C-alpha cells in the first residue's frame, strides 16, 4: 500500500538513515586519509610498505606461488567436508555396539583441535615423510602438510556439522521413525538435509579460514605466496611484497566471505518464514 501515511513515513525514515550512514562513512574515511599521513613515521612506512614500483615487481613473482596455495585449498576443501561429516556422524551414533567409534571420534576432535594448526603441520609435514625411503608423491612434505590441514579442519568442521545435527528437533527424528524409516534412512533423508543447510554459513567461515591457513605450509619448505613474499622482503628490505601477498589472499577470501554472508542472510530470511513454500 504505497499511498498510506505509514509508507511515506517509512520512506522518509529510510532516506534519513541512508543519509546519516553516507555522511558518517565519508567522515570516517576522510579522517583516515587525513590523519594517518600526519603520523610522524608515515613517510617511512609508506616507503617500505606501499612502494608502487616494488608492488608491481612483487605481484608477478607471487602469482605462481599463490597458485600452489589455491591448489592445496581446492584439493583440501572437499576432503575436509567428507572427513568432517564422517567424524560428525561417528560422534552421533547411538548404538551401544558402536560406542568405540563414538569414543574415537570424540578423542579425535579433542586432540586435533587442542593443538595449533602450525604445530600439526610441522609434526606431520616434517615427520611422516621420513617413514618413506623412496621419493614419490606420497613421501612429499607438501602432501603430508596438506594431510595435517585436512586433519585439523575436518575436526573443526565435524563440530559444525554436529551442532547442526543436534540442532534438529527430536520430533523430526521421532516423526521419521514413526513413518517406518530406519535410523540410517532418518539420518540420510530427514536430519542431514536440514542440518547441512543450517550450518552452511558457519562452514563457509572455516573455508575462508582454511584459505589463509594454507600459508602455514611454508614451515615445511613449500614456497607458497607468503614464503615467496618473505624471500622478496629479505632481498629488498622493503615490505611491500607482504602487502602484495595480502592483496592476493583478499582476492579469494573477500568473495568467499561475501558469499558466506549472502547465504546467511538468505537463510535467515527463509527460516523467519515470510513466504511459506
Amino acid at each position, binding site marked *: 500500500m504505497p499511498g498510506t501515511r505509514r509508507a511515506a513515513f517509512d520512506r522518509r525514515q529510510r532516506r534519513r538513515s541512508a543519509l546519516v550512514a553516507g555522511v558518517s562513512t565519508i567522515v570516517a574515511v576522510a579522517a583516515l586519509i587525513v590523519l594517518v599521513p600526519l603520523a610522524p613515521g608515515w613517510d617511512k612506512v609508506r616507503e617500505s610498505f606501499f612502494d608502487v614500483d616494488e608492488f608491481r615487481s612483487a605481484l608477478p613473482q607471487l602469482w605462481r606461488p599463490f597458485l600452489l596455495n589455491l591448489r592445496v585449498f581446492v584439493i583440501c576443501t572437499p576432503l575436509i567436508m567428507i572427513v568432517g561429516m564422517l567424524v560428525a556422524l561417528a560422534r552421533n551414533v547411538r548404538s551401544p555396539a558402536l560406542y568405540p567409534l563414538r569414543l574415537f571420534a570424540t578423542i579425535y576432535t579433542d586432540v586435533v583441535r587442542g593443538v595449533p594448526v602450525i604445530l600439526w603441520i610441522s609434526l606431520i609435514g616434517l*615427520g611422516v615423510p621420513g617413514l618413506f625411503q623412496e621419493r614419490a608423491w606420497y613421501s612429499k612434505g607438501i602432501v603430508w602438510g596438506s594431510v595435517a590441514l585436512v586433519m585439523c579442519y575436518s575436526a573443526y568442521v565435524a563440530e559444525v556439522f554436529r551442532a547442526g545435527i543436534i540442532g534438529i528437533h527430536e520430533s523430526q527424528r521421532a516423526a521419521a521413525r514413526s513413518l517406518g524409516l530406519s535410523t540410517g534412512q532418518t539420518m540420510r533423508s530427514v536430519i542431514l538435509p536440514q542440518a547441512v543447510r543450517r550450518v552452511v554459513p558457519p562452514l563457509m567461515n572455516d573455508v575462508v579460514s582454511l584459505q589463509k591457513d594454507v600459508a602455514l605450509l611454508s614451515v615445511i619448505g613449500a614456497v607458497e605466496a607468503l614464503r615467496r613474499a618473505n624471500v622478496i622482503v629479505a632481498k629488498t628490505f622493503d615490505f611491500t611484497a607482504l602487502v602484495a601477498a595480502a592483496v592476493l589472499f583478499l582476492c579469494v577470501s573477500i568473495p568467499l566471505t561475501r558469499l558466506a554472508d549472502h547465504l546467511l542472510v538468505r537463510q535467515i530470511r527463509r527460516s523467519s518464514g515470510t513466504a511459506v513454500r
Partner: protein
Amino acid sequence: MKRTTLATVAALALVLAACGSDDAASDTTAAPAATAQTPAECAAGKTIADGTLTIATGDPAYFPYVIDDKPESGEGFEAAVALAVAKQLGFEGDTVTWVRTAFDTVIAPGPKDFDFNLQQFTITDERKQAVDFSDGYYAAPQAVFGLADSAAASATTIADLKGLKIGVAAGTTSVDYVESVIAPESDALIFNDNAAVKVALESNQIDAVVTDLPTALYITGVEIEGTKVFGQIEGSGGDEWGLLLAKDSTLTECVNLALAALTTSGELETITTTWMSEFTDAPLIKS
C-alpha cells in the same frame, strides 16, 4: 625535515654497505705505493708490548680455523693467516704471543689487550664504528652439503646441481644465490631454519643444502651426523672477514700492507686452499 634526514642516513648506510668491500679492495692496492715501506718497518714500535706481537683469537678456537685449539702451531686457516701476517710484520716464534677473547666483548668499543684479533669477524659498517678492520682476508663462499650417499656428492660443476632438489634456510644470502645462480629445475624448498633443513635431508625431501661454507662446515662437523660438504662453489664469495684492531689503531695500515704482500705473493691463496678446501675436503665446484 627530520624524516628526510633519516631517509638520507638510511640510504647512505645502504650505499656504504653495498660498496664496503670495493673500498677495502682499493685501499689494498693504493697503500703500498703511497707509503713505500715494508710491513715490518711500518709495524716497528707500534705493538702494545714492545718487541712482541699479541694476537687474539676465540676461546676455544675451532676447526678448521685453529686445529686442536693450538694457534701457536700455525695449524688451521686463521692460525696460518695470523702467523703469515706476523712474519710480514717482523714477528716470529717467541716474539708472537697468543691471547684468547670472547667474541662479543671484542667488537665493543674500548681499549684492546691485543694487536689484532681474528675469529671469523665479518667486516660491517656498524662494527667499524667501534673497531678497526683490516682488508678482508677471506670471503666465505657458498657451499653444498648433504648426506654422504646423496646424488649431489659427485657434483663438480654448477650444472650438476641443477637437477637436484635443493633446500635452503630462509633469510640467508643462499636463497637468492640458489635461485638466481644455480636456478634448479625443480623449485628449491625454503625452510625456516637449519633444524627443519636437517629433517628434510634425513627424510629425503631434498638432495642437498646450500649455505655459506663456514656454516656448512659447522653443521656437517658438529650438528648433523652422516653429512658431508660436497664442495664450495667457485667465485661465490660473499661477506668478507677482516682482522680486528682497536679503533684508529696505527697498526691497521701495517696489517693491510702485510695482507697486500701475502696476496701478491700468492701465499694467502695457498693458505686458503690448504685449510679451507683441501683440509676441509670441500673441493671447488666450478661455475
